[in-house]
């Protein structure tokens, strides 16, 4: 390590973040490409349990956080599908459940490698309304920062939180400067059910009206969260004619493409959501207003586009083009070619 810089993998970064966040136990089940988060955590000597499947891992995290212990899991693809059972309970009961998702090709077993095809599942999975916090980091340093924030905000706001990344990011080794995070503070966990009190806590209601009311309260809280933590990044948007919208690792490639095209005087900008849920719709609509085109670029068949379009100002009239490469990495050269065709 050189002056607080390390050359490490995304998985190791995630593990470091969980350790620094004060997580005490990880429940997990091996699944590529997320296994290294599990084995990495174990190799650091931390407490864990390998469960019989992802369903058990999810519910064990629920039990742990109910008791007030900072706990998390990591999974991918088909494991992510199974995790919806436990994660749904966390959504319904407002549990500070934290999970790291390593997107891989889907559906079914797909590939063990990479995709951005679990956006819908992460944001809107289970049988609820998507009241979950979802972060999509686009660099190793963001993997660290947003894993830390996932823990903080899960416990502060009581919404289950996801660090949504992918197989490429977790296995990429890169230079990470931890110096800039040294003052980041943790929010403490606390028991949600206390000895000496009597709490009767349900997730099933007898009448429609009871659940409706509960959901209205949750929605109010979720909107407050949006105001406080919804985050996005604007790159060269002010005089841009077309705006690219991308997230995660693809947004990293887009940034490079934008930089190179700008040096050729092409007027392109990038709007990058950092929180997929809640989406920074205020910034989104400010950026796209008056622009000629939106270009969605993602390694899925429009999952990001669907999510973002849902929050576009309904009065907005704008051309939209799509570069959709489900399960495939997207190179800077491809992005530049696509933008050039559309500018």
């Amino acid at each position, binding site marked *: 390590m*050189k002056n607080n810089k390390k*050359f490490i993998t995304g998985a190791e970064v995630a593990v470091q973040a969980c350790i620094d966040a004060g997580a005490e136990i990880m429940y997990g089940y091996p699944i590529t490409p997320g296994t290294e988060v599990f084995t990495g955590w174990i190799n650091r000597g931390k407490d864990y349990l390998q469960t019989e499947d992802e369903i058990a891992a999810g519910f064990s995290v629920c039990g742990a956080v109910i008791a007030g212990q900072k706990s998390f899991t990591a999974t991918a693809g088909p494991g992510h599908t199974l995790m919806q059972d436990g994660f749904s309970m966390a959504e319904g009961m407002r549990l500070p459940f934290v999970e790291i998702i390593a997107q891989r090709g889907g559906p079914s077993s797909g590939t063990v490698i990479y995709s951005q095809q679990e956006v819908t599942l992460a944001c809107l999975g289970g049988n609820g309304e998507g009241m979950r916090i979802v972060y999509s980091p686009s*660099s190793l340093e963001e993997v660290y920062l947003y894993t830390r924030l996932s823990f903080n905000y899960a416990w502060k706001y009581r919404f289950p939180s996801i660090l949504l990344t992918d197989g*490429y990011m977790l*296995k990429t080794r*890169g*230079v990470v400067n931890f110096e800039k995070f040294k003052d980041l503070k943790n929010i403490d966990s606390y028991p949600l059910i206390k000895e000496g009190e009597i709490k009767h806590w349900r997730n099933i209601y007898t009448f429609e009206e009871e659940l409706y009311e509960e959901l209205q309260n949750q929605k109010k809280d979720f909107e407050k969260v949006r105001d406080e933590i919804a985050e996005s990044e604007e790159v060269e948007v002010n005089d841009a004619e077309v705006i690219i919208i991308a997230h995660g690792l693809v947004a990293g*490639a887009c940034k*490079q493409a934008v930089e190179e095209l700008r040096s050729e005087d092409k007027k392109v900008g990038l709007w990058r959501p950092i929180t997929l849920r809640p989406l920074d719709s205020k910034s989104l609509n400010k950026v796209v207003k008056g622009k000629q085109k939106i270009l969605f670029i993602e390694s899925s068949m429009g999952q990001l586009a669907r999510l973002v379009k849902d929050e576009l100002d309904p009065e907005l009239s704008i051309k939209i083009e799509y570069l959709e490469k489900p399960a495939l990495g997207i*190179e800077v050269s491809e992005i530049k070619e696509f933008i050039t065709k559309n500018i």
Partner: protein
Amino acid sequence: MFKLLLAGDGGQGIQLLSNIICESAFEKGLEVTHIPNYGLEQRGGVSLAYIKIDNKKIPYPKFTTPDLMLVMSDQARGRVENHLGEGQEVLDIKDFKEKLDNENIVLRSWNIFFLGAILKRLDSEGLIDMDFAKKYLENKLSSKLGWEDNLKAFEFGFKS
């Protein structure tokens, strides 16, 4: 920005080479990314390593056209066909096999031969800390079987 793609069969030492190269570039204070790529099988598939070295932050670890590409097997060659491009240097085992046999470089040390050649190129472009690389290699392999062969291979590669 320098883009390096290493390709070989699993077991030919591609990841070992990546580690030495990347750590040496990191030691030089540069930004480095490395992303490996394997098949599904635990043994016998193609092993790839994408390496980027730059003096500023690298936003995306993969690329289409490397500046320098190493191909260590027929299986690997097939896999990296669409990474060929203009102006790149390709170190292909088929071009060196005879030379290596003539010089009595053992099969097990072929990857170290190429490491010598690659490090020489990277050093000439100021991308690695050469002393560190040599020490790292020694640390990793000197206590293992065949160190003399490896050393010989390295020096031969460096000279070539």
